[in-house]
């Protein structure tokens, strides 16, 4: 059964606030961080073996 949320805010109101906060933080980060002239993905650099940029394990240098 749906219940009234503890903050007495409808999801629509909370959603609007969350959306606004998310985008304000993103815009703030964008305006205060260096930008790349072309969009990038982590897999493009280094010895990446996965989309997140994780390197290929078998090619990692072994620890002393």
């Amino acid at each position: 059964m749906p219940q009234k949320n503890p903050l007495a805010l409808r999801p629509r109101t909370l959603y609007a606030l969350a959306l606004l906060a998310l985008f304000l933080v993103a815009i703030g980060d964008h305006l205060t961080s260096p930008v790349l002239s072309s969009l990038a993905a982590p897999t493009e650099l280094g010895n990446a073996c996965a989309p997140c940029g994780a390197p290929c394990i078998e090619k990692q240098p072994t620890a002393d």
Partner: protein
Amino acid sequence: MPVSSPNSSSSSSLNRPHPAHATGGLSRVVDRPLLLLISCLGIVLAGLAGLDTGVTGLALVGLGMLLGMAFMGFQYGFASGWRRFLETGDGSPLSLHFLLAALCALMFIPVSAAGIGPSGSLAPVSLSLFIGAFMFGTGMQLANGCGSGVLFSFAGGSGRMLVALPFFVIGSVLGSIILPPVLALGSLGQVEIGAGLSGFGKLAVNLALLLSAAALFGWLGARRGFYLSRKMLLATAMIALLCWGVFWVSQHPWGVTFGFTLWGAKIASAIGVPIEDFTFWTWPGPQRALTHSVLSDTSSLMDFAMIIGAGLTAAVTGAFAKSAWPNARQLQAAALGGLLMGIGARLSFGCNIGAFLAGTASGSLHGWIWFALALAGSVLGIRLRARFGF
């Protein structure tokens, strides 16, 4: 694969009355304040992306918005479809997902093999993949949405996703921290299906596998009286076309969850956590993402655009007015599910989009393993849903 008439439905989402129909007309349900807010945010996003990355940025914002609209408009989810298969034997949603992968493979595999720029999504077959995909499958059933599902449902004002998304973000940061030691436990490296074959041969083998899986799940559904609907076939074709566009423009298959990881890492860094010292964030790719704008990363930018697209669709169809606040147990499940998905996505190199769809469509074995383990995790997730009372 049997196809039903346009009026019959094979997906749970198709059984829901459209808000516009339920209230007697589209004009009566348009949420004008939210439409205005989301439109403004979309214009700002497109403007900033266009200023820095030109046509590429604008194109990816456009593609992300269209994907958000398509997913929201068709309610094209993965979690509910997989649950439907496990609970009722209706394989038609899974059949659609493999058909989508087959359509994407038509572009991804030959273009990657030709070496003309864009390349597919390969990832290691590692112990972390098995653990992470199982966790993700469990989490997506608890949260009632996968990576893309959380994103478009959040954009549609779902109270559950308002909780699941932040926990997904937290989980993916935790996942980024634990990925390096878990990855070191064991890995076979990347395994490409049909690796020794020509581009055409590789495509033929992978298409045969994907279409066989689509046919198998379609047949399983038909045995129980469930058929593919033309509407969802159209949605699948539209999403495949958009995935082709993302592949061409960004040079990589579409991915969702790295954007969440980046958002979380940026927030952690802003509140004083030395996130840049953790191994994951010293790798060149993640390090570059962390030290640049959130709008410079393809996945992150497209996530923002998808929220805008899905939000606009929800505002036009009045979805927000229909949103009820879930009960406390459902919110707890959403939080736990989000956390599991976040950790699982990092350990298994993505979600249903970045690992399953992009992986299988690129001819990478990790995509198939991801599917099997996430489906197994879904079994546990469905059982846990009962513990949470839904």
